[in-house]
């Protein structure tokens, strides 16, 4: 599990980042999946049309070959050399149009004929001009079919490539990025929980220590107070004795004073 997660510090900020990433990956996944589906639909359509067009091409080319055989028969000799020699500029040309299928540009060939150009004015002049004309028309039609088929085929090749890339991306997101991000989120969560528990335990420990300290201080204070009280009590006893003693001494003095007075009296007399 640890191998399939990203190397991150398990903090709340990274958790937020990972959650955003997961959301982004999921949105991207659905979008790409939809794109791939749209392309595949198009692709199947094109494949079917290619199959049909190939069959059609077989028939068209057969007809064309037959018309050329007619030309050979009518002119009496092989015209191919003459044709090859009189070629100079292309009458049949291709224009590429672009079509957009969910962000993929597919070229679409379009044939057009330049009516100004005619390289074969003299071909079949002596004999079989009609057949040559017919062969020209039939071959022009055949080329149109071929161009159509070629554009289908090009679209097929491009779509094939794009679908492969898109599917690769879809699979990468589905099987690599999303599980990895989820793993990372789970890892960060477990790590944060662990930290929470540690913190809680630490607080409890601190509180315990504090309570012990308080209890110790309380006991000390009690003891001190008791000692003080005892001391006070002892002191109180001592003072009472002293006062008694003082009192007796005072009495003694009084007595002595009396004595003195007596004696003084004596002296006066």
């Amino acid at each position, binding site marked *: 599990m640890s191998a399939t997660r990203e190397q991150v510090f398990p903090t709340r900020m990274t958790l937020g980042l990972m959650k955003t990433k997961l959301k982004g990956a999921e949105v991207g996944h659905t979008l790409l999946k939809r794109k791939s589906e749209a392309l595949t639909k198009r692709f199947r359509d094109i494949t079917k049309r290619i*199959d049909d067009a190939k069959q059609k091409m077989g028939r068209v080319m057969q007809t064309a070959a037959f018309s050329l055989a007619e030309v050979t028969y009518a002119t009496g000799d092989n015209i191919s050399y003459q044709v090859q020699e009189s070629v100079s500029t292309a009458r049949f040309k291709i224009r590429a149009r672009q079509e957009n299928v969910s962000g993929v540009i597919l070229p679409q060939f379009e044939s057009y004929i330049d009516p100004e150009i005619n390289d074969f004015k003299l071909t079949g002049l002596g004999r079989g001009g009609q057949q040559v004309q017919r062969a*020209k028309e039939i*071959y022009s039609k055949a080329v149109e079919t071929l161009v159509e088929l070629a554009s289908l085929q090009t679209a097929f090749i491009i779509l094939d490539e794009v679908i492969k890339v898109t599917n690769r991306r879809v699979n990468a997101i589905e099987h690599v990025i999303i599980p990895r991000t989820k793993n990372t989120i789970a890892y960060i969560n477990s790590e944060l929980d662990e930290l929470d528990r540690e913190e809680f335990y630490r607080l409890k420990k601190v509180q315990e220590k504090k309570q012990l300290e308080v209890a110790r201080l309380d006991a000390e204070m009690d003891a001190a107070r008791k000692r003080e009280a005892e001391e006070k009590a002892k002191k109180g006893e001592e003072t009472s004795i002293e006062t008694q003693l003082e009192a007796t001494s005072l009495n003694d003095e009084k007595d002595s004073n009396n004595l003195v007075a007596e004696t003084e009296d004596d002296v006066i007399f």
Partner: protein
Amino acid sequence: MSDKRTLIAVMGDEDTTTGLLLAGIGQIDPKTNDKNFFVYKENKTTKEQLEMEFNQFTQERKDVAILLINQFVADMIRSTVDSYVEPFPAILEIPSKDHPYDPEKDSVLKRVRKLFGE
């Protein structure tokens, strides 16, 4: 990307080439005398020549949009044709008069079949 590609090139036997030229696809460069068609002559044209022409049309020339090639000619340089995967120019295998068209050999149809697991 394909604005300059306006021509159709042909590699085929005499009849096919003649027919297509009659339709008006042929062009000869007035300066370099380069043709956009190549006539295959039975027992005369070598495989090397074919491969050279094929590469010329597919890689060197930038004005070819579609290359039409007779299927039996393509068969002779099958590995080169099959390994060609670029979209431009598009390769199209066409039947010839003497050789009926066999869809099993077509490089694109082969890919179609492979994709659908047939």
